[in-house]
């Protein structure tokens, strides 16, 4: 039993990290909005999904215009990435303007319901457009980097099997790390980052210190949504097929990751995302082996949520969060 688990460990790690990186970047979107507005933007999963569709649509557009053959794969990848990020970023600002800002003085519950409304709206709009264009909302996109690398982990330790890693997985990991480092730098080292942290700490006082609160909030939504949309492109490239409902489960997992890491804490979200990805992959690969076949891979989600519950019972502020004594 143990030998079987160890044997596949390198592969499980690789797959878990790729999935975790996706969760982590999406979790950042939740955590940023929560950190500043103290409300959960439940439409964030759908923003991620929209990003996946916009990216795929852009790729199809490139191909039908005949540009795809002419440019190197990485240019196309980068362009599509930028288009999806810009689109979802602007969309995020629009959503905030229409659905959240008019409700900012209302009780938290009201904006929460508004967010759920937006998420259903986005699902159905994307579904409608995809259905109209392709006759089927399940869309299989163009994979740019479908190649496969073999990592000879068996030469590191003979007990391990070799792991296979898609070229695209490397891109997902690299992009996620770059996005996270960039964001960390932005929030901690730039003027706008200072403004963001100031608004997070105390909106009224910040506005007295001549910080344009509305603009900072709009910027937060832009960055969070752009990150979500960009991750959507990574996801579509990684798994090939997308549908308008991928945002829901993934959004839930990413939200869990944000809470696990300590919601409002950007580094916590990254850590939580990677952790959830790894746990989920380990559970789905090994649950059957550990329980002797009575629980199978289909119970993987339960395991992630169970761990969340346990963490929240013993450390309610999350793994990297600080206990809130006063509103910071």
């Amino acid at each position: 039993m143990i030998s079987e688990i160890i044997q596949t460990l390198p592969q499980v790690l690789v797959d878990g990290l790729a999935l975790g990186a996706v969760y982590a970047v999406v979790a950042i979107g939740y955590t940023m909005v929560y950190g500043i507005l103290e409300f959960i933007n439940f439409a964030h999963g759908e923003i991620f999904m929209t990003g996946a569709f916009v990216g795929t649509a852009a790729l199809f557009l490139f191909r039908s215009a005949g540009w795809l053959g002419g440019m190197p794969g990485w240019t196309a990848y980068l362009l599509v990435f930028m288009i999806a990020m810009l689109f979802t970023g602007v969309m995020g600002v629009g959503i905030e303007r229409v659905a959240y800002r008019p409700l900012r003085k209302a009780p938290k519950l009201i904006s929460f319901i508004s967010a759920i409304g937006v998420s259903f709206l986005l699902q159905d709009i994307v579904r409608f457009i995809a259905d109209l264009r392709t006759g089927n909302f399940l869309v299989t996109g163009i994979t740019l980097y479908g190649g496969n690398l073999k990592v000879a982990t068996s030469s590191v330790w003979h007990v391990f099997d070799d792991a296979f890693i898609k070229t695209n997985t490397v891109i997902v990991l690299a992009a996620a790390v770059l996005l996270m480092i960039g964001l960390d730098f932005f929030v901690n080292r730039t003027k706008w980052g200072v403004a963001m942290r100031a608004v997070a700490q105390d909106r009224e006082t910040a506005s007295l210190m001549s910080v344009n609160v509305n603009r900072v909030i709009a910027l937060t939504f832009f960055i969070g949504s752009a990150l979500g949309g960009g991750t959507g492109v990574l996801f579509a490239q990684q798994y090939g097929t997308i549908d308008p409902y991928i945002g829901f489960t993934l959004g839930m997992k990413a939200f869990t990751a944000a809470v696990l890491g300590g919601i409002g804490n950007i580094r916590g979200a990254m850590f939580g995302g990677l952790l959830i990805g790894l746990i989920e992959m380990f559970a789905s690969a090994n649950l059957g082996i550990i329980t002797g076949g009575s629980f199978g891979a289909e119970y993987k989600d339960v395991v992630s949520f169970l761990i969340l519950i346990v963490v929240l019972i013993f450390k309610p502020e999350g793994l990297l969060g600080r206990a809130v004594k006063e509103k910071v």
Partner: protein
Amino acid sequence: MKVKKGLSLAMVTVIAAAMLAACGSSGKNGTEGAGNGGGSGSSLPVIKIASQSPLSGGSSIQGEAIKLGGQMALEERQDEFKQLGFDLQFVPYDDQGDSKKGVANAELIGADKSVLAVLGHLNSGVTIPSSVVYEKYSIPMVTPASTATEVTDRKLKAVDRIVARDDFQGPAGAEYAVKTAGAKNIFIIQDQTAYGKGLADSFQTAVKGLGATVSGYEGITVGDKDFSGVLNQVLSKKPDFIFFGGMYNEGGLIVKQAREKGITAPIMGGDAIDSSGMVDIAGDKLTDVAYSSVSTDITKSNKDWADKYTQKFKKNPENYSAYAYDAMNVILDGVKKAIGDNGGKLPSREQARDAIRATTDFQGVATKVSFDDKGDNKFAKVFIYKFDGPKYPGELISEVDPK
């Protein structure tokens, strides 16, 4: 402030308008069928035949094939019914592959007194609850695709099917796996649906009976996109054969991700991966994938018919198209006979139901049909195909006759 409120209001209005437009167009879809051939404006008594299949969502390729096959058969015979003094109409419903939607549609169909029969469904999980409603209203239903044993095992008077059952398909697949492909160590993946689990279970029993070992039996969730977890288990078990009970969305991704992980073992599935969707999803990773199917490759066995279909709808027939065409003809023959028995007057639903069940030796484009007392087709065969490369349909390997 007023301006800002106005702006929000304007944007909400735009969204609402967009949604209304969406509803409007889907509403149009719904009535499109009713318009078929109804344009004469004559006062002939109307006979409607409904169809239920997923026209949107994950299985819409197969669902649309069922609708179009039925539509083709019905339109060909509209004049024949006009001479009998009836206005024959086709009403397609979209069950979205969802049992709740299927049952809701079934209630609508039951309430429409001019509907005499139903063609459908695709998914057994939708057929089973919906057929309870049909039984209540005595509306006969003929399914060209649902294979779960429970569909006919309940011995409902209203339920017939023209394709083979899962407890025949599973063993036929097992025979291929063990005897033809020489599998000894088999890994089974299933999607936890009435169809997928039923098929996987009957396959499992049969391969064990043939002396092969089952080294893993795992479930997945419909709608998932990442199957690396299950496939990592496959890696550790090193099976020489993988069986998948489930639909082509997940099947295509599993094949693709398995090949990307370097799993080269042959993969086999049931009739639900008998779809060009497999090619779209798995692409050039679609190698060494066998599938049992309850449908013949119509483009080879009846090319004339397939050409006619392509010409009419500007798209290639899926295999279910031909079975939907045959099922519709079985329905129409039954209705016609019921009209005759009723002295040329509009028959009741009960009369249509009993006439359809009494079908014997009907020769269609894809299959011969005689119903037994449960509503199963005595002549239903199982076919084994194999994909090797991104081309649909796969190559026909063998035909298995009913015992």
